[in-house]
């Protein structure tokens, strides 16, 4: 059992309370069944089911109110005392038919309320993650109590009559109440005056998850009523009155012994292996199969007993643990559970009783027919349970305080008000604001709304940007105001004006500018005229006569031509642009021009520009525009190790820009096969970008396999780093500290990669936030995050089991030593720092192995150690 420091006291007290409570109930139940069947016969069972359900309908709200008013622990103590008194009362009264009937109702009601209150208390004392570990063993306490209760009943019945069991039951309940007072429980959440009402059914039905839970609880209850009746029918037809009590005691003994084995040996592992949802589906699955076997055996006594034992055992062990864990993410659990208890469970019991009565009065209900009905009900229970996963995940999502990742990464469109606001901004004095407004209008293709009057502003930056936009828009309403700007005092504005006239094809203005007093303006005009008339000279563009005077790093004329060619594609454009791009200072301008024009001959140039941060976005856009030939070239290049590292590391994200199935395949291959960490990381980023920006399918098995690989790497690095935590004074040595810190960073890095992989697998969830919640100060929030991730990973299909196991080990709240101990089966776990350094010195990571070898040598731990490198000061602080 995985019991952690600080949990022991609470757990064992809860264990004792449940053992005593169920022990008492087993004694009570044995007496109840024997007395009822002996005195009233099975035909009255239908009435008692209905009566018990009606009683529960009346009492559950009272019990719920009690929990809210006094807290879960105190409510349980009160109910245990009442149950104790009730059992003692039935012991001292003569067993009339009415009293036996009332005893049956009392035993059923007390068990129902006590068990519900106990688990409510447990879910308050333990978080969802603790519950996953501890609810299984805790439920074993109930089974142990039932086993002891059954054993006591068997022994007592050999020396005394069945009613004496009631006295022992009363004592057990009383003892349970005493132990329960020692459990530390959170106080009640609200004062009595603030108590909210139990949610009305319509409100409850809005919670789809709760509706499913309610439906499952209802069908489980109806199934149980039918199974119980079938069982008692067969028992009463098979046994004499005197044999009933010893039979029920033995049945309880054997059934609970089997259940204890199941609980201790299987439940914990099943929770880890199947997850909460798998666990919840197990009881209806097994009941369905047992039901089929009972039908096929025509209701044989053994098969019926197995069916009843299966129902009782599974519902109170695996089913109970699963249901408790399912409730974990439900906010305002107490109210909703009360509603489910009242509306679903008790209502369904009453309905089950009524249905049974109907079946018995209208048809010849043979054991085979009843078994068939039980089978159908179990199958329906299973069918409803199968659809619960998405709602369960949704609930955790909500509990973590973040809805699904609603991305609105598009910029809003402009309505009339917005346009008005932006146009007003154009008139404001601030240059930055005017430029921002110009850019916002331009990006939304609303350049035509920019008033030509903006050209009356004084600031060169604003004028240049406005002229750029007017030129590219093809508008002509600004020409009259713009003409004067050719004579502006600022050369940048002059050139921008010539460029704008060139772009709108105003040859007359270009001619005028070609006679301008400024040599720069004249040259600009000539360049645009030549470009417009298609009279570009032959030969290498860098050697053209046109550019004879265009010297110095600015190259204004060449830049003007590059801009013009970028906007007005011509057959010669790519050749000329690439020739001009041969000059390093023009390469950026050429890259930006190639975003709009150019053919596949530009691909090698554009790939080289990926290495330059300032040009990367433009180069990517240009490559994506070129389509298939560029994608071909890039997917080949990602595997080309001879390519410069600076280019290679940017290829995966560039490939992602194509947003195609081929890009996905290529990135998955890289992620799987590349032996360069940074390239794999970039492939991961590229896939994440595709996952978040498109609906292209990404192979789930590959991602699940990567989760296993990265999770295992996390555990390997974690185990290595942990070896240094317990290394004593050596830990502080700089040589060791460097290795340790590097390992710790790598641990974080692999955790981050796991988050990205999960993000790819679950595009609509904000996985980053969930991972942040794993480190939240709030224990409940942390536990919700763990469960949420577990549920997400388990939905990855066939490959999910291994991935869930590894991920659980990574994200679960475990003391470091325990995480390392558990990781031992998956990855090498060094015993100490010395062994860790030995392992690391052979690590595939060249840097890590070099540093580990150095540390071993300096510490004298390696073979053929050399003297330490001289450092000043010799021991730097870690």
């Amino acid at each position, binding site marked *: 059992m995985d019991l952690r420091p600080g949990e022991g006291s609470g757990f064992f007290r809860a264990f004792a309370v449940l053992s005593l409570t169920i022990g008492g109930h087993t004694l009570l139940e044995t007496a109840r069944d024997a007395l009822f069947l002996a005195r009233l016969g099975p035909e009255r069972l239908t009435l008692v089911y209905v009566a018990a359900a009606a009683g529960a309908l009346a009492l559950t709200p009272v019990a719920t109110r009690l929990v809210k008013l006094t807290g879960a622990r105190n409510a349980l103590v009160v109910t245990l005392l009442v149950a104790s008194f009730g059992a003692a009362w039935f012991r001292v009264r003569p067993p009339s038919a009415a009293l036996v009937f009332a005893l049956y109702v009392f035993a059923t009601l007390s068990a129902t309320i006590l068990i519900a209150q106990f688990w409510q208390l447990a879910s308050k004392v333990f978080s969802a993650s603790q519950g996953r570990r501890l609810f299984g063993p805790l439920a074993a306490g109930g089974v142990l109590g039932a086993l002891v209760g059954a054993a006591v009943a068997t022994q007592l019945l050999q020396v005394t009559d069945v009613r004496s069991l009631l006295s022992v039951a009363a004592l057990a309940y009383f003892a349970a109440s005493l132990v329960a007072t020692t459990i530390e429980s959170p106080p009640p959440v609200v004062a009595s005056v603030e108590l909210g009402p139990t949610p009305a059914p319509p409100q409850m039905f809005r919670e789809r998850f709760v509706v499913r839970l309610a439906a499952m609880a209802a069908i489980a209850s109806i199934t149980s009523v039918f199974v119980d009746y079938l069982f008692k029918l067969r028992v009463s037809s098979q046994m004499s009155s005197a044999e009933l009590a010893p039979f029920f005691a033995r049945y309880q003994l054997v059934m609970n012994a089997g259940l204890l084995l199941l609980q201790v040996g299987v439940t914990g592992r099943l929770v880890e292996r199947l997850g909460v949802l798998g666990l919840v589906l197990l009881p209806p699955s097994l009941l369905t199969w047992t039901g089929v076997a009972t039908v096929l055996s025509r209701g044989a006594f053994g098969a019926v007993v197995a069916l009843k034992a299966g129902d009782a055992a599974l519902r109170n062990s695996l089913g109970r643990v699963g249901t408790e864990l399912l409730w974990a993410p439900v906010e305002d659990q107490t109210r909703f559970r009360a509603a489910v208890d009242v509306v679903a469970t008790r209502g369904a019991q009453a309905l089950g009783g009524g249905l049974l009565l109907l079946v018995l009065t209208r048809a010849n209900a043979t054991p085979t027919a009843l078994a068939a009905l039980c089978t159908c009900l179990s199958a329906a229970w299973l069918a409803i349970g199968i659809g619960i996963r998405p709602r369960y995940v949704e609930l955790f999502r909500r509990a973590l305080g973040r809805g699904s990742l609603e991305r609105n990464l598009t910029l809003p469109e402009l309505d009339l*008000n917005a346009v008005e606001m932006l146009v007003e901004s154009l008139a404001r004095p601030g240059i930055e*604001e005017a430029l921002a407004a110009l850019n916002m209008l331009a990006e939304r293709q609303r350049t035509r709304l920019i008033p030509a009057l903006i050209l009356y502003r004084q600031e060169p930056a604003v004028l240049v940007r406005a002229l750029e936009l007017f030129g590219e828009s093809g508008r002509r309403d600004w020409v009259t105001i713009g003409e004067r700007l050719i004579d502006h005092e600022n050369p940048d504005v002059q050139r921008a004006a010539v460029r704008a006239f060139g772009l709108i094809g105003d040859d007359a203005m270009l001619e005028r500018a070609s006679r301008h007093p400024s040599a720069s303006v004249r040259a600009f005009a000539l360049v645009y005229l030549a470009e417009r008339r298609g009279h570009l000279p032959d030969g290498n563009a860098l050697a053209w006569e046109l550019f004879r005077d265009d010297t110095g790093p600015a190259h204004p004329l060449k830049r003007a031509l590059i801009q013009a060619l970028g906007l007005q594609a011509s057959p010669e454009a790519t050749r000329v642009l690439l020739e001009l791009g041969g000059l390093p200072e023009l390469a950026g301008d050429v890259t930006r021009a190639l975003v709009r024009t150019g053919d596949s001959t530009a691909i090698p140039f554009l790939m080289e520009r990926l290495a330059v941060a300032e040009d990367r976005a433009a180069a990517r856009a240009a490559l994506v525009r070129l389509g298939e030939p560029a994608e071909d070239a890039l997917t080949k290049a990602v595997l080309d190790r001879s390519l410069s590292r600076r280019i290679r*590391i940017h290829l995966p994200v560039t490939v992602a820009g194509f947003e195609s199935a081929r890009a996905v395949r290529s990135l998955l291959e890289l992620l799987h096969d590349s032996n360069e960490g*940074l390239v794999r990381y970039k492939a991961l980023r590229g896939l994440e970008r595709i996952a978040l920006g498109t609906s292209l399918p990404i192979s789930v098995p590959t991602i699940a396999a990567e989760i296993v690989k990265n999770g295992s790497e996390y555990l390997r690095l974690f185990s290595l780093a942990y070896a240094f935590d317990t290394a004593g004074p050596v830990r502080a040595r700089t040589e060791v500290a460097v290795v340790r*810190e590097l390992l710790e960073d*790598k641990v974080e890095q692999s955790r981050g990669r796991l988050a990205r992989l999960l993000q790819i697998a679950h595009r609509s969830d904000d996985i980053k936030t969930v991972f942040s919640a794993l480190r939240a100060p709030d224990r409940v929030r942390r536990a919700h995050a763990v469960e949420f991730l577990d549920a997400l990973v388990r939905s990855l299909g066939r490959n999910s089991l291994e991935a869930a196991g590894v991920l659980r080990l990574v994200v679960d709240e475990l003391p470091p030593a325990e995480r390392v101990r558990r990781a031992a089966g998956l990855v090498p776990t060094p015993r100490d720092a010395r062994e860790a350094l030995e392992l690391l010195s052979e690590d595939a990571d060249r840097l890590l192995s070099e540093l580990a070898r150095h540390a071993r040598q300096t510490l004298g731990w390696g073979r053929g150690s050399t003297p330490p490198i001289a*450092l000043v000061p010799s021991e730097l602080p870690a």
Partner: protein
Amino acid sequence: MIISDNDRLLRELLLRTLFQSITGESLARMTELLVPRALAEGETLFTEGEPSERFWFVVEGKVRLEREGVAPWLFGPRSVVGSLDAFRDRPYTRTARVLTEAHFLELRRSDWLDLLDDDALIARQTIQSFAGRVHEMARRVPLQNDGELPHPAVATPGPFSTYQKILILRQAQFLESAGMQAVASLTALASEHELAVGQRPADAGLRLDRLYVIVTGRVEVEGTHGRERGPGDLLGGPGALQDPAAAAEARALVPTVLLGIHQQDYYDLVEEHPQLSSSALRYLATALERLVELEPPQA
């Protein structure tokens, strides 16, 4: 939270006004993350000692950052308040009081760091514009030397082993909180250089597309009021993060050993190791704070 299109446009306009080059997805994400806030005259935006989980863009109005015994800092529209503490990950060191009715856009520090983590371009632009501001102020404000320069991490002459390079880069102030993995990755890309007494980088044939970390020795940076830089400093000071050519103004006062990292490599690694950007911002915030203490902002 659903934000109306008009609100988003207002935020976009402000963001574009503050960051000329912000575009696309980063811009859209920022507009989603910003929360508008309005305060009346006399109200407090944050108090000294509170955890610095947020910082604010001033849209309208004036704010005074005050602390007992020191000159107040005044901020007006289009400035950012609270960021120095947030970048240094420490509680607010001043109380921010609104002087005239003010409108802010609030950003959580963690959201901002997430954005830098996801968008290397924004990270780069932020570092560069911040570094540019520090550089420009360093040229204007006469900041005294810190006294004795730190001891070098490695005093032996090169060539350096990987381990030694790690020790050297670990001492670099702009990498102080970058984490060992980031430092180790930079180590693999770092090369050794030397400056003789009186030499400038150009004299030693050093290319000015690299960030040079001083390993041993001492340099003086022209135009920064005789300020000297030593082991762990960037040649050229914080401004080198904006433009490595800032190192051109440095002159070796004693024989000086340097480790050079191509600027492109540094910013490429920012994408993989986001701590590099938070560490650089922390370094720049420290440098800027020392400068603004001498020349308090006056709105």
